[in-house]
């Protein structure tokens, strides 16, 4: 047990001991943030991070637009229950 703990501690500390030999990303080794390749990767990462959110919110916006358009087509102006099972609430009399 003690040996395992010792080995575990060594493994945990090894990256900090070899800090100048270890890099987080194997392709970002060309130095500080101003380097051209690092900039390129940063822009690419920002773009790829933004895209899922952009697409998700576009789709949600489309659904919201469709919902509002359908509501308008039915001629509903007052607030209507969003969920179809809201009739149970009405029935309960509360």
């Amino acid at each position, binding site marked *: 047990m003690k040996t395992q703990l010792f080995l575990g501690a060594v493994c945990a500390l090894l990256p900090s001991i070899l800090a100048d030999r270890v890099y987080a990303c194997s392709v970002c080794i060309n130095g500080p943030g101003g380097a051209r390749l690092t900039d390129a990767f940063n822009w690419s*990462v920002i773009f790829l991070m933004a895209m899922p959110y952009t697409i998700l919110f576009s789709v949600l916006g489309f*659904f919201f637009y469709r919902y509002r358009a359908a509501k308008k087509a039915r001629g509903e102006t007052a607030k209507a229950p969003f969920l*179809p099972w809201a009739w149970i609430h009405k*029935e*309960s009399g509360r």
Partner: protein
Amino acid sequence: MAREAVVRKITQPLAGETPIPAFGGGEPPGPPVALSQPIIGNSRLAVLMFLVAEAMFFSGLIGAFIVFRVSSAEWPPPFQPRLPVAVTGVNTAILLLSGLAMHVALRAAHRGKWAPLLRWLSATALLGTIFIVIQGYEWIRLIRYGLTLSSGVYGATFYTLIGCHGAHVLGAMVWLLVVVAQAWKGRFSERNYTGVQLCGMYWTFVVALWPILYALVYLY
């Protein structure tokens, strides 16, 4: 159905049928609320999900292009042919016009006007064909000038990105021709023209994607 049956038993019990009391006391329930239609049909939702996946696929390719483009000191690299910006600009306008034609075709289908639908779908297919032919011609010229998939990062990113879009336009063209044939046979009605709608969604995606790729690959 079960919900409506329960509501009917509460509001209008038949002779001999034990009436079900209203839940939780209070006022007797009013007439059942009309069931609302889904805001988007299943087939359209499926195509939308497919388009989301396609958008992420092209995002990956664009991400790779950004890495190569931003990291390179000179773009296009020396001794590589320049891309035909002006001709492709005209081609972009042609593809955007095809998107407009598809929009008009969808409006015609919505109004149940079948002759204009066929006419505008054919116009869309014609403009799409012109786009593909011009793209193919420019590709042949670029290959003759020495820009190939294996000639370097410049050629590889160009052919991968623009080639993938070209393949999608080609696929959309096949789909569009099937829809034109169906419209010719009178398969669509005022209540059911889902085929035109789905094809229109895909075509709109392909058209909307192209100006982004054009700006990124040809102009940036």
